[in-house]
């Protein structure tokens, strides 16, 4: 396929090669957002270059070993040969200094060089980085120590250089892993598509069909693929051959698997439970329903929220501020205590102020939250949507298709003459068989008949009235539809049905009538059904202290009944403009309001609300009017999403508070000279870990609150090593 100009024009932010999170202002080629990702990618690189990966690991191990020894040597130096008063002590001190120097060299070589390379690369992108400051510190302390060693007097700070390099590498690496984990939920979605597929090709010579195993990325539109039982459907497509039941719960929320036969459409990522299918691809893998969902989450990750912008601004002014403080510390201690103190204390300032935690505080929580929500079938348009959703205090719901299923179900059937029942049913089945109207479908589902359906001729639908057809061999027509159709076609109402209609006209219900031979024979009473989870959802929303109301265009009597049923105010007989007005009024009162609808009919109201929530987006996640798309028709996602958004925002606030307080306090301590650089390095790693752990907890809570199987597709999160749970006491 030739390159699509539209595709090349879309602005795709450059992503880190390892953690796949957006990198600002990046260049061509392999890009890493930090040295941690560079390191992690080198270590875990599975695409061939195992040698390099082992080399990195060996380097880390060796550096760790040498660093521990250097630490012990300098400890011994301080403990036993600080002030050498004997010749033995002097000799010991000399020996320890030289051996520490020898042990430091490999650490500098193995871990210092990558740090230098990263700093250099950032410098080429015209970015001053903390890497650069750290590198300066390491070189300075190493250089100073060498001079001391050669002269045989003065302190050595080999352990500072070693510990900083080891801890910075380890800390960055942990951060990179944390970020990777943050996008894990997204990867879990992507992994629903198999890596390889069986393509069916017809050999040109023998005209026999053959199966070839090819990578998913090579599939083009129109390819025929074979999908066996218990395999996942790799692309959106159409069944050509075979039948199967397919688990589509992720998209439809329907726990009952769907039966598929030739001509049925299939969605990529759904699970073939039992059949053997030949499928024709109708979309490229990344442009199918699942691919579009993943892409939408990706885009959401690059949309920055208010907190993220705040953190960004802070990070930007952070660097010069820290530079100034470090320089000030160096100057002050240089004037008062000496060059050594100046070096160590300014190094400690840089280490403790390293804005890793601050830079991670918001994005990590947002990324983790967006991915987790997507896995639970909730697509959020970005960090800003999350923040707005968290601040929502009022919720307005549409009725039809939102609170109710949108498809009416049969409530009652009345027959004029009970002996005629089978005849009425089979005629009703035949008439409704071809119709797609929601009432027809409800009737067709209801009238399960084993009798062969009468064959029809001259079937025609009367718009807004019903269906008219002639049963084979009969002179008169059979009618199915509204009371008006019956009146217009002058069908007579017998006493029983007339009484039933009079009764139900008081309480406005929908009904479908069937009649032939000048007489109405049967009546189907239909009713819009509340979704099963609607009451739970309302209770959950109330416990989130949300102000609830239903806005509907429906008949006021039905609205009143709904209000009685669910205990929530219902405003009925609203025109679309009046719905808009209701939302606008709330907003002018300063109420943060979210509107829930199907995203098609009520798109303007959704767009006007602070947050528009569209139900049942299914495969169509790109509905523009909605900020939040619920992939399934599952109302319980709404309170979950609002609760989760609040939790995320509180996590972000905790992270920001923690990193500001921690860094601020640390800088004060360090600039006063009360913090040894090695300890500062360790504290920095701990600070990052706190933020990482706090953010990643969001993923857990997303899972805990969800049902047993959030994807409904037998999905299990990709677990890392089993040993993980055994790591910490």
């Amino acid at each position: 396929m030739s390159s699509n100009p539209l595709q090349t024009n879309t602005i795709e932010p450059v992503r880190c090669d390892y953690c796949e999170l957006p990198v600002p202002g990046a260049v061509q080629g392999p890009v890493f957002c930090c040295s941690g990702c560079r390191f992690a990618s080198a270590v875990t690189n599975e695409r061939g270059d195992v040698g390099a990966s082992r080399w990195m690991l060996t380097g880390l191990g060796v550096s760790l070993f040498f660093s521990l020894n250097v630490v012990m040597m300098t400890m011994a130096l301080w403990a036993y040969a600080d002030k050498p008063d004997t010749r033995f002590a002097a000799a010991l001190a000399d020996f320890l200094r030289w051996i520490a120097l020898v042990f430091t060299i490999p650490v500098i070589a193995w871990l210092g060089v990558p740090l230098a390379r990263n700093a250099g690369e950032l410098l080429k992108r015209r970015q001053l980085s903390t890497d650069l400051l750290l590198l300066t510190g390491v070189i300075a302390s190493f250089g100073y120590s060498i001079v001391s060693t050669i002269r045989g007097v003065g302190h050595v700070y080999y352990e500072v250089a070693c510990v900083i390099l080891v801890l910075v590498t380890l800390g960055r690496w942990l951060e990179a892993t944390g970020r990777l984990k943050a996008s894990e939920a997204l990867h879990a979605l992507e992994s629903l598509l198999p890596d390889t597929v069986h393509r069916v090709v017809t050999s040109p010579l023998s005209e026999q069909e053959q199966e070839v195993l090819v990578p998913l990325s090579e599939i083009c539109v129109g390819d025929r693929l074979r999908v066996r039982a218990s395999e996942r459907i790799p692309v959106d497509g159409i069944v050509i051959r075979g039948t199967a039941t397919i688990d589509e719960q992720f998209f439809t929320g329907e726990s009952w698997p769907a039966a598929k036969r030739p001509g049925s459409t299939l969605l990529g990522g759904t699970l073939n439970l039992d059949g053997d299918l030949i499928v024709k691809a109708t979309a490229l893998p990344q442009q199918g329903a699942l691919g579009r969902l993943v892409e939408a989450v990706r885009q959401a990750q690059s949309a920055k929220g208010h907190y993220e912008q705040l953190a960004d601004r802070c990070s930007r002014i952070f660097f010069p501020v820290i530079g100034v403080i470090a320089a000030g510390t160096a100057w002050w201690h240089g004037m008062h205590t000496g060059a050594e103190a100046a070096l160590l204390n300014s190094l400690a300032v840089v280490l403790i102020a390293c804005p890793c935690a601050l830079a991670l505080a918001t994005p990590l929580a947002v990324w983790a939250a967006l991915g987790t929500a997507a896995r639970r079938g909730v697509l959020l348009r970005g960090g800003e949507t999350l923040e707005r959703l968290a601040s929502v205090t009022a919720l307005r719901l549409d009725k039809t298709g939102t609170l109710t299923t949108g498809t009416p179900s049969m409530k009652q059937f009345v027959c004029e003459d009970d002996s005629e029942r089978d005849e009425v049913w089979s005629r009703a089945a035949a008439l409704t068989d071809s119709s797609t109207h929601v009432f027809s479908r409800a009737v067709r589902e209801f009238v399960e008949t084993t009798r062969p359906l009468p064959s029809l001729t001259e079937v025609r639908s009367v718009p807004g009235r019903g269906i008219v057809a002639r049963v084979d061999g009969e002179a008169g027509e059979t009618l199915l539809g509204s009371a008006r159709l019956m009146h217009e076609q002058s069908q007579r109402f017998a006493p029983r049905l007339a009484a039933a209609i009079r009764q139900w006209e008081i309480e406005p219900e929908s009904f479908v009538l069937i009649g032939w031979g000048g007489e109405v024979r049967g009546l189907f009473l239909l009713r819009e059904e509340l979704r099963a989870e609607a009451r739970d959802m309302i209770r959950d929303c109330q416990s989130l202290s949300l102000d609830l109301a239903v806005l509907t265009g429906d008949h006021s009597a039905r609205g009143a009944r709904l209000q009685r049923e669910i205990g929530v105010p219902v405003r009925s007989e609203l025109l679309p403009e009046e719905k808009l007005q209701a939302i606008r009024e709330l907003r002018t009162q300063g109420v943060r309001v979210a509107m829930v609808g199907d995203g098609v009919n009520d798109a303007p109201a959704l767009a006007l609300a602070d947050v528009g929530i569209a139900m049942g987006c299914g495969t169509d996640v790109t509905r523009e009017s909605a900020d939040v798309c619920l992939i399934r028709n599952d109302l319980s996602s709404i309170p979950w999403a609002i609760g989760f958004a609040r939790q995320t925002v509180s996590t972000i606030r905790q992270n920001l508070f923690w990193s500001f307080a921690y860094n601020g306090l640390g800088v004060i301590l360090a600039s006063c000279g009360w913090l040894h650089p090695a300890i500062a390095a360790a504290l920095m790693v701990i600070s990052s870990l706190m933020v990482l752990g706090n953010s990643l907890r969001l993923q857990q809570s997303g899972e805990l609150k969800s049902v047993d199987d959030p994807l409904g597709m037998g999905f299990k999160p990709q677990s890392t090593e089993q040993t993980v749970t055994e790591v910490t006491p």
Partner: protein
Amino acid sequence: MIEYPLILLGGLLGSSHCVGMCGGFAMIVGMNKPTFRENLWAQLSYSAGRLLTYCTLGAVSGYAGLRLVQTSPRLLNVPAALCLLAGLLLVVEGLFATGIIKRRGISMAPQSGCLMSPLFATMLKLPGLRNAFSAGLLTGMLPCGLLYAFLSLAASTGDMLRGMGVMLAFGLGTVPLMVATGAGAMLLKIATRQRLMKAAAWCVVLTGVLTVYRGGAFLKAANAPSRETATPACPFCAANDASAKKGQ
């Protein structure tokens, strides 16, 4: 002298705790080794890595203890305080392990551990003794209550070499069971393992109580310098050690 044998015993008895926490790593180290002999070497390298980290941490603690003694006011009995701290930590850690007290906010801890796992996994699965050794070095740095308790004990010695000694003794104590686990000799039934864990937990509590007692002996020795000779020569307490120190 400090009671190295007791510490060794503490390590030995406490090492069921280590098996519970880090035994999985040892098993991974052993997984890809074709022969028992190779596995044994790998296990020993892994444990040697742990020991080196423990020793370094012990040295740092000992030195930190020394500085603490030097800088803190005379009124504060640093060794006694550290001993008491170490003892209490051991008791608490032991009680956690017995399940008598429940840990709160546990969800936080495994997360940070999880972050290490990809690195560990890669390192542990690679052949070569040096990788097992590196993994051991890193294992020694994992947060562990038992380790912290013994580190405070090391700090209470107030001497770099003795602090190293404490941690070496503790580490050596943990070696047999860890190596046995990794070498596949620990294929015990879950019930047996649970019983062993329970016993080990109480051993940790006991070590803690003895350490607290040792701290008390430090205090007593400091308060009653004239009655040095009357201090009982109990092998489980440091009274002798404390009085010897006094005499220096």
